[in-house]
């Protein structure tokens, strides 16, 4: 038996959530980098705070008036910056380079504002403005556009949001905590007998292949005995990587899974693990390995769904 799950990179859709030009540079950089190496389309979404409903119409009236003075919404300003950054990341992308940001070319639809960009071949970038609570807005955006991966910066509210992000976003999630764009990370791929392992392996292999990052496959068991499921999953992962000619290191460790993941990852790995298949109510009450790992680690983490 072997893993059969295949990712079709050219059909992938990634979503990068940004908050400001001050803090979102690394997130946007990583989003654009992996969208580029995967040849995926990239949505960039700015989720801003929604004005208190009492004064919402006064705020809208002011914004309309600000338009007359050519002062645009702070969210559109951030998206304008994002487009400029994307162009800088990909100077070779002629289609992207030719696109000019125009704050007048925006379209309100489905509770969001979309910046209209020319649909030139090779561009495949969407700029979206949303207002409201972060998890709710990201969930709506992912459901609307069917994104495969959401890329989110690590915020100070991470621990508070960890559970909601993992449990409610219906896509794979890459949380870039303390991410340094120029740093070469090692991939720490967590393999066990869960259903999501097969997809994690496929994502890990593809990232390793595209970015050239070294891979360490880790299997952790609470008992000294590694069951058939664990052993089989680890073997199949190795076979998968071998078939793609990617060298790996592999470890089997006994201990508490979450503590082991966190300790092993240190500060130089990017963790890849599958989303929990536990009943959502149990996850809410007791947490899950991804939720606990995200809450405790400070390195980037990809949770594959």
């Amino acid at each position, binding site marked *: 038996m072997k893993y059969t799950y295949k990712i079709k990179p050219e059909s992938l859709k990634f979503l990068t959530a940004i908050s400001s030009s001050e803090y979102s540079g690394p997130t946007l950089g990583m989003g654009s980098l992996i969208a580029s190496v995967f040849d995926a389309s990239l949505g960039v979404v700015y989720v801003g705070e929604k*004005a208190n409903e009492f004064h919402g119409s*006064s705020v809208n*009236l*002011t914004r309309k008036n600000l338009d007359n003075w050519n002062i645009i919404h702070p969210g559109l300003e951030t998206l304008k910056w994002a487009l400029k950054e994307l162009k800088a990341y990909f100077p070779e992308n002629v289609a992207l380079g030719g696109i000019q940001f125009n704050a007048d070319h925006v379209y309100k639809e489905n509770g969001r504002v979309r910046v209209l960009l020319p649909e030139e071949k090779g561009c495949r970038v969407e700029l979206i403005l949303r207002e409201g609570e972060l998890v709710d807005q990201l969930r709506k955006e992912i459901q609307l556009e069917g994104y495969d991966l959401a890329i989110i910066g690590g915020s100070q509210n991470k621990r508070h949001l960890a559970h909601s992000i993992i*449990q409610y976003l219906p896509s794979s999630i890459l949380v870039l905590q303390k991410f340094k764009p120029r740093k070469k990370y090692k991939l720490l791929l967590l393999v066990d007998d869960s259903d999501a392992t097969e997809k994690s392996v496929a994502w890990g292999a593809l990232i390793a292949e595209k970015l050239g990052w070294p891979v360490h496959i880790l299997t952790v068991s609470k008992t000294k005995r590694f069951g058939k499921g664990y052993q089989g999953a680890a073997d199949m992962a190795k076979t998968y990587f071998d078939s793609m000619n990617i060298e790996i290191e592999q470890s089997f460790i006994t201990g508490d899974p979450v503590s082991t993941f966190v300790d092993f990852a240190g500060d130089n790995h990017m963790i890849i693990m599958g989303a929990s298949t536990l009943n959502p109510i149990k996850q809410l009450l007791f947490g899950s390995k991804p939720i606990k790992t995200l809450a405790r680690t400070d390195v980037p983490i990809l949770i594959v769904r």
Partner: protein
Amino acid sequence: MQVYIDILFWVRQKKWLLVALIYGMSMHHLVSPPADLNMAAYDALIIISMALILIITEPLPLPAIAIFMLFMQVVLGIDTANNVASSFMNDAVFFIMGSLMLAVAIVSQGLDKRLALGIIKLTGHKTWRIIAGFTAISAILASFIGEHTVAAMMMPVGLTLVRYAHKDPRKVAGLTAALLFSIAYGATIGSIGTPSGGGRNVIMMNYWTEFGVGTVSYLEWMKYVYPMVLFQIPFTVMILLWTFKPEQDNLDTAVRKLVVEVARSGKIRGREWLAIILFVLVFFGWVFLSEDFGLGIIALVGVFLYLAFGLVEWSELNRKTNWGVILLFGAAISIGIQMNQTGAAEWVAGVIISNLSQVIHSPEALQGSVAVLLTGIMSNILSSSATVAVVGPIVLDLGGDKILIGFATAIASAFGYFTAVAAPACTIIYSSGLVKSKDFLRAGWKMGVLSVLSLLGLALLWWPVLR
């Protein structure tokens, strides 16, 4: 599995709705009302506390909360459907509706560019004089046309100056904050000056009439309150300069560029004159005719005239007016009237007075302190107008001179300096993304102290002269 996730997500998003419902049902079915409180009054208090939970936490859109307050009055048997309907619509709601529509009509005329030129002519290029000019003009204009209208017109002027002062506003954070707060706090301190300065003033006037306290004319209101507006202006300027310390003493280049930009719009046109004349007519209507016709009706006449002269399209008014807020104020005033009629407001006032009379022995000081503190705190959590709608009936039952207590309450509802949610002008500058929540606290506590002291001075020194 996905169904469970969807249900859990719904619960996450609506948890405060569930809390409000569980609280309401428990209080109604499991807890008996106090012996001295009748069932209708008890139910009115349950509805209002549920509505407060929903308004503060926003699990539902405001119109849904308004509808909830209305149908619950009938479902719980507090009053009949027809009586609830008639208490829902009154002159205060007309005024809020009219002033929101007038704001759209006035802002869409592009008068802000004229205003910018006028302010610069008055103030010159020095930063402190510009801050002083912004504060004074915002305060005076807001006292007549409402703070939301003034903030919407002044924001572009302020932001344009900031943009011309430095490419990156974060590099001149002090100047940015001082300019934006001069608009917000200027408009807020001005909004108490006349009845038309804010919907909350009209709500209080409506309660005075509704509860048989008496009537106060437009000019009488000004006589009682306007001195406080004028007194606060210079101190607000000092607070802003002291707190934010603008990085540039002189805005020569920025002002020159602003003047060039504004000058492009040419001479003032006929339709702009017409817009100004119509507003002046509305103003005179408020001053001289409101006792006979009501402030709300006159505001609606103004809207009618703007529409009749083609100065604004109905589609624009319809799109930009927040109908949800109008519904909510209608519903809040309706439940406020029920609180008065059922005796709920009197009961709450009695509980407050009996508990606090041990601490503050002078009845006047106690009534004033409760009115100001309760209103001031709530307006920083809710919104100023909603606070008056909810707290109004209670403070008017605290005892003492109901007119003066009403003035103190309406004034204290403008003390929403600490958060971005209380006053529309504060929400507007916050939406620029250039000021932070902590900026409201940095300057807000100083403004709070200033306003409380000013109100105290007004109540002790000025009002006794008038009564």
